[in-house]
């Protein structure tokens, strides 16, 4: 049984987190940026024959003008303004984690913590067994058997329309309902788009889904589902077997598994507190640092451990610069 731990109350000191980062990275005062723009400032496009207008800009009277306050980023021909925090903006092909908000008329409305709710059409979900058939009226009535309201799902962005509405699909066995795990909300700016968003950490027995919209899912690994997904990917498995494997309830996780999941989730929360990018390597290095130093689960969010994480990052950057 768990013993209830004593409640620790710490006074809130404004600016303490920033002071911690500045101390560790030896940055006394943040240098003013030369490419900082404010709303309405003109962005120079001289020296560029053509350019692609990105987020945070608009063309007014033939001039490129910023609509948000931030730093101008230029990547090849793309010019956009990066703000410190903004809502997630969907791009085609992003892997996202969302919560079902509503079930209505041949589609689910999924909340992605973005500007609008995304739509998941009934025709775009993966049927158990991988069979392809036309959805009929009975499927429409049984939509709740797939996903109910307030359930978490992982999906991929199929398309983004001109007015900003997003269409999702779960046309693969690896997408679908997420159960028995922990969800961590991270500012979407900290998540980089990478080739792989599904990570299976077999050594720890944990699966990690880093959604591009800032929702990160950490759950104990389910070997039976993993096997079924692998079989489906290789193609040609028995439809009946697959349906059974997916319908079977998951075995209850052990205490050791839960502890690993909580520790990983806390590692992600620590990175969020320090506003550092969240990707598998940074999560694993934070996790390993916590295990090495024998930090308690709740102690991973205390200033002492955060300082250690920042120190590690400073060391990594220093050695990277020397190379």
């Amino acid at each position: 049984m768990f013993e209830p731990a004593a409640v620790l109350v710490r006074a809130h000191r404004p600016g303490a987190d920033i002071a911690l980062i500045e101390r560790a990275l030896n940055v006394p005062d943040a240098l003013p940026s030369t490419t900082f723009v404010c709303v309405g400032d003109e962005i120079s496009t001289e020296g560029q024959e053509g350019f692609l207008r990105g987020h945070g800009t608009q063309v007014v009277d033939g001039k490129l003008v910023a609509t948000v306050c931030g730093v101008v980023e230029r990547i090849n021909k793309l010019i956009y303004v990066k703000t410190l925090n903004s809502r997630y903006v969907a791009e085609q092909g992003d892997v996202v984690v969302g919560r079902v908000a509503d079930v209505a008329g041949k589609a689910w409305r999924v909340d992605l913590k973005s500007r609008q709710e995304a739509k998941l059409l009934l025709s775009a979900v993966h049927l158990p067994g991988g069979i392809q058939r036309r959805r009929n009226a009975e499927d429409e009535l049984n939509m709740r058997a797939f996903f109910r309201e307030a359930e978490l799902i992982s999906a991929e962005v199929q398309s983004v329309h001109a007015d900003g509405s997003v269409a999702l699909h779960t046309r693969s066995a690896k997408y679908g309902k997420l159960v028995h795990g922990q969800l961590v909300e991270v500012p979407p700016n900290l998540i980089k788009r990478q080739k792989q968003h599904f990570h299976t950490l077999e050594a720890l027995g944990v699966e990690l889904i880093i959604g591009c919209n800032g929702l990160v899912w950490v759950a104990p690994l389910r070997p039976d589902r993993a096997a079924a997904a692998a079989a489906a990917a290789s193609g040609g498995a028995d439809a009946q077997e697959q349906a059974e494997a997916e319908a079977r309830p998951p075995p209850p996780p052990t205490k050791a598994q839960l502890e690993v999941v909580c520790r990983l989730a806390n590692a992600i929360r620590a990175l969020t507190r320090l506003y550092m990018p969240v990707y598998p390597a940074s999560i694993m290095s934070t996790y390993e640092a916590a295990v090495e130093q024998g930090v308690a689960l709740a102690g991973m969010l205390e200033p002492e451990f955060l300082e250690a994480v920042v120190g590690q990052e400073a060391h990594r950057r220093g050695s990277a610069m020397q190379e």
Partner: protein
Amino acid sequence: MEVDRAGPGPGSSRAKGRLPSQLRTIVSERCVLDRADGSAKWTQEGSCVLAAVYGPRQAKVQREDGERAVVEVVYKPRAGLQGHTERSRELDIRGVLEGIIPLGMHPRTSIMVVLQVIQDDGSVLSCALNAAVAALVDAGVPLNSMCASASCVLTQEGQLLLDPDSCEEKAATAQFCFTFPHHFDLTKSAEGEAVVSQAALGCRSHGNFKTGHLLEALQLCALGCQRVAAFARLSLSKSLPA
């Protein structure tokens, strides 16, 4: 949380030496609330307003517009329930914000601005508008231009006073609150000189006055807005490093 001060002002009241066209000390804090998309606390010496912005996010079906974003403003007084003055201020603030947000960019979304008056010592509407714009910038909502607001009053003797406190407002014949859009002219200097547009975005007046008074109040508030704009730029450039 970032806190910026506009520099020690010479005493808040006219008795202590504040000139008729001098603003009170401004303090602005960004990122005050955790759960809101953007938040800001704007203090003009005695008046303090906390603004929170939620959005752009999915609008309720009854309120969504298929072609543009919907701006919802909630203005809460320091004490008591919302009355008719609060509702009319909500309409004013909504009109001003709809002028600076490109609504057609986000159809079917809603941008909700919640304003809570923490302290009231005159010029509260200006304070609320400045706080709302700072919160919108903090939330990363795209804007066509920034805007600044300043208030002034016409005394019994016919003198105009900028940024009045509550006793001056009570004793005044007329009260004005002007909002101007501003942008920065980067050709003049590297930091950018604040250029306040000639056209006002919002004007709220109350009381007994002549046309001449209105035009003079417009000029005086434009001057005040220039200083508010310079302060807003300074506070943003300090909190957005490379």
